[in-house]
């Protein structure tokens, strides 16, 4: 194995054709946060040490986009965001040639366009947030 490079991973969304995915144009950084609340399982008798466990993972993804239209994927995300309809989402390795088998993360998600910047002397940038609508079906980094 080698050191993984972020540029090799792209976000893909299901298109209007069922089970067919396309990569969003103009992608920048995709970052995800995973927080698992800590559960304290200790009491006075646990011999001087607190013990703990972790609860459900709260997943949130955030994708920076330099908007590049026409792009049916961006337009679809906009529609889904406004209508609060879930959409299938994958992160695939292999860049633009990533296939279904290259998915390192796959889930039904709700999307929200959380910010748009119309920059002076710059591009139009958007941020897309991703929240799970169901538990992911693939979640293993490779």
């Amino acid at each position: 194995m080698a050191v993984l490079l972020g540029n090799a991973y792209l976000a893909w969304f299901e298109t209007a054709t069922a089970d067919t995915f396309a990569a969003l144009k103009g992608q920048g950084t995709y970052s995800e946060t995973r927080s698992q609340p800590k559960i304290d399982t200790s009491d006075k008798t646990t011999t001087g040490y607190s013990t703990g466990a972790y609860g459900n993972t709260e997943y949130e993804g955030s994708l920076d986009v330099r908007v590049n239209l026409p792009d049916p994927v961006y337009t679809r995300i906009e529609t889904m965001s406004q209508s609060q309809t879930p959409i299938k989402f994958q992160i695939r390795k292999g860049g633009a040639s990533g296939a279904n088998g290259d998915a390192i993360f796959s889930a039904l998600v709700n999307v929200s366009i959380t910010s748009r910047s119309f920059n002076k002397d710059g591009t139009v940038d958007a941020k897309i947030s991703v929240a799970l609508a169901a538990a992911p079906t693939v979640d293993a980094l490779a």
Partner: protein
Amino acid sequence: MTIQIGKREFATRRPQNLDVQLVETTGCTAAEHVDILGVRATPYQVARALRPFLDKEAPAVSDLATLIGDADLVQVRTDTVALLQAAAPAEKD
């Protein structure tokens, strides 16, 4: 068939390539619009779904959305869903 939006009435026709047109403007197919409009519908969403059914001379989507916003949204939405259902090919899945 016609559709009434406020005081105005528009002739409707069945577009040849409805899904192609809708995917181009909204990223979603007619069947998906039926689902979307069934749950939550803004005047703009209804206007985008309705536009392919209207003649070229009819108002553009943004003007149509304004008209729908001033009219009875629920009624226009119901009529639009009926048009979509009549024209949509078999539903997804």
